[in-house]
């Protein structure tokens, strides 16, 4: 399998995209059993990663100044 990014470095979008790709790949059924096991395990981890990201997420709000700078905004 190609070099994998460590799960904890993936953001939600990346993890979800890879997860969807892995499901398609498993559906294709053309990988060896060993590869498939690897895909399955990574897929499970990706799903966990997404859920964890949702659990931990806290809306990040910034304010754009007139000069184009970003400042944190307290809700």
């Amino acid at each position: 399998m190609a070099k994998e990014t460590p799960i904890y470095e993936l953001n939600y979008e990346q993890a979800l995209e890879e997860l969807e790709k892995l499901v398609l790949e498993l559906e294709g059924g053309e990988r060896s059993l060993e590869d498939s096991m690897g895909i399955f395990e990574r897929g499970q981890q990706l799903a966990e990663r997404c859920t964890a990201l949702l659990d931990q997420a806290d809306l990040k709000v910034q304010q754009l100044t007139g000069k184009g700078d970003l400042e944190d905004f307290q809700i």
Partner: protein
Amino acid sequence: MSQLSLFQQPRASFSVSEINAYIRDLMESDSTLQELWVQGEISNLGRPASGHLYFTIKDAQASLRCVMWRSQAANLVYRPQNGDQVEVHGSISVYEAGGQYQLYADQIRPAGEGLLFQEYLRLKDKLEKEGLFAPERKRRIPARPGVIGIVTSLTGAALRDMLNTLQRRFPLVRVVLSPALVQGEAAPKEIKAAIERLNQYVQPDVILVGRGGGSIEDLWAFNDEGVARAVAASAAPVICGVGHETDFTIADFVADLRAPTPTAAAELATPDQAELRLDLEDLKNSLAQLMAERIQNLRWQLQTAAFELSRRSPVARLQSDRQRIDDLSRRAALALGNHARLQRIRLRGIAQQLEALNPQAVLNRGYALVTGPGGKLVKQVGDVSAGDMLRVRVSDGNIDAEVLP
């Protein structure tokens, strides 16, 4: 004779009913009278138990009686009062029983809105003709935005509503506020600049332009041509959520998506995390199910292969080879047997021939075979000389003899 004769009429006289009905017909066939706005000040407002609304509108010189039936009066958002400057919409006809013409009203609005409304219609018409509202101009809102830009007032309830909604539905998103006054004279310019700044510095995936409910004047900034054009020119798709369900601003028409309220705009911009979690569960289940199917398939393949293997195993092969060898040997033996028999028959023939040629057989018949010195066969007298020792072979033995001198 010029004197009018009471008994000499050019035609029959009308009854009052007839003439009132005639006038009513006349009025109702006039298109101007059938659909018009009339402006004036309300007076003599009456609200009888029937629910109908009776009033007069007047200006400095004249007055006009008006009636609004209960069905329409019940729908009025605005509650007219004596002394209000209003615009009344409806048709003019005759109340035959009273012999009075009056305005049958179906809408009443505070005066002044009319001008704004006309300006609104003019701009709407203009931008529509330019194609700014065309469905094919509408861009798709991304399903899971990474960055959402918000243009609204920092102090308004709209901002709080939108942020709460985003936090609840999709807290993964990054929000960039581009503040702008949303009412008052400076509002249009600020809203336009706020949209432009977002596109210039942030390039969000979607921009929410929002403002809470208010009077038509409060919302007027969103009917500004500059704002409308900034929405149309925005690189990021724009969701417009201004006022309440029933408020349609020009910015709403130009936006890629119109939301009835700021909260709804935030909802339309984001997926609900409850659904995302369900999707994740589905994906996880798909993985597990696909894996289970895969293993089941492999199990099947294995069984099939095992069956094939046993069918083609060396044991079976050996058995079959052995059978083949048996077969071949049988055939070889058969072939050899045949050959030997033939040979025996041939031999017997040759033996008989040889028998015929056997010298012994000749000897048996009484002939003798004479050999001279050195075993040389004596065929003629000249072959021998006196004193030679000869051997005479007869059927049962040899006789040695000497040639006499």
